[in-house]
C-alpha cells in the first residue's frame, strides 16, 4: 500500500536537500561544574567525580569532569530563543533551530557518542552540527524524513572531545 502524498513534508524535503553537507552557525558553550552538578542531580547520579576535584583526581582526572551524556544533552548553550520564537511544541533551540523544519515535528530517539576525552570544568566548547543526509521515507504510519546529524564539540585548540551522531525523524504536525 502506498502512503498518501504529504505536500508539506515534500516541501520540507526540498528545503533540506540543498543543505546536505552544511552546518548551522557554530555555537559556543562554556561548561562548568555547577552545570555538571545540576545535571547529575537531575539524573539522580551521586558520583562525586562530577563536582569534586579530589574525587575526580582519585579516578585519574585532573579535575571534576562532565557526566558522559551531559554535553550532548544540553539543548541550548546561550540564553535561548525568546519564547515566541520557539515552535508550537516548544522545540527550536539553537542546535537544530537552523534547520527549516517549520510545520514538522522533530523526534529524537537516541544518539551515538564517541567520547574522545573527558570534558573538564571551565572548557570553552565550539559546537558544530552538520546535516549529513536527509531521506524521505514511507513508514506504516505515513511518510517521514530521516535526518542524519553529526555534532562535534571542540576545545579551543581544535581537539574534538565529543562526536555525536543521531538520526532524528521529522513528520508533519
Amino acid at each position: 500500500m502506498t502512503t498518501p502524498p504529504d505536500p508539506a513534508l515534500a516541501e520540507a524535503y526540498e528545503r533540506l536537500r540543498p543543505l546536505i553537507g552544511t552546518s548551522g552557525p557554530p555555537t559556543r558553550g562554556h561548561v562548568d561544574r555547577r552545570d555538571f552538578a545540576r545535571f547529575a542531580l537531575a539524573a539522580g547520579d551521586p558520583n562525586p567525580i562530577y563536582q569534586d576535584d579530589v574525587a575526580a583526581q582519585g579516578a585519574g582526572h585532573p579535575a571534576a569532569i562532565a557526566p558522559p551524556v551531559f554535553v550532548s544533552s544540553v539543548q541550548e548553550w546561550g540564553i535561548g530563543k525568546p519564547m515566541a520564537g520557539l515552535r508550537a511544541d516548544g522545540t527550536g533551540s539553537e542546535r537544530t533551530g537552523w534547520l527549516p523544519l517549520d510545520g514538522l515535528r522533530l523526534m529524537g530517539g537516541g544518539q551515538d557518542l564517541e567520547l574522545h576525552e573527558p570534558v573538564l570544568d571551565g572548557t570553552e566548547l565550539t559546537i558544530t552540527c552538520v546535516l549529513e543526509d536527509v531521506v524521505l521515507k514511507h513508514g506504516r504510519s505515513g511518510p517521514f524524513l530521516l535526518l542524519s546529524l553529526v555534532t562535534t564539540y571542540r576545545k579551543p585548540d581544535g581537539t574534538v572531545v565529543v562526536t555525536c551522531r543521531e538520526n532524528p525523524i521529522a513528520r508533519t504536525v
Partner: protein
Amino acid sequence: MTETEAIPAALAEVAPVERVATHLQAFLFSAATWNPHRIHYDRDYARHEGHPDVLVQSHLHACFISQALLNTVGDGARLVRFGWQNRAIACPGQRLVISGRAVAAASTGAGLRVDYELDERHESGEVAAVAWASVVLHARTSPLTRTRRRPS
C-alpha cells in the same frame, strides 16, 4: 593495534538496576539541559500528542543506562563510546529495569577495552531503550576496587 582478550569475570554482567523517573525529575532534567520541549512537562500537550502523560527524556534514559554501566565498571574505567536508541516511551512513575552484559574485550594501547550491550525494560518486558557502549580500563585500575553507588 588491538588483541582479543577474555572478558574479566567481575565485569561480565551489569546486574539489573531499577529506576523510576518522577515528574519533578523530568522537570529538573529539562531545566538542567535548557530543554523547552513541552512534551516533558506539559501533560495536556503530551496528551494532545497521544501520550498518557509527559515523557521521560531520551537523554534521561541514556543517563539511567550509562550510570548502571559505570557503577559496574567503576571510576577507573573510562566510557569511550555510548550509544542508545529509544524504542518505547516511558512516563514518570513507571518502573524501568536496566541490565547488560559484556560482549567483547580487547587490549588496546590505552588499556583493556570492554564492549557492552545493554537494555532498559518496562515491567511488562517491553524494551524502552537499547544501548551499546565501550569502556577502557586503565592498566593501574583493578575492577575489584570499584565503588558501587545507589542512585540518589
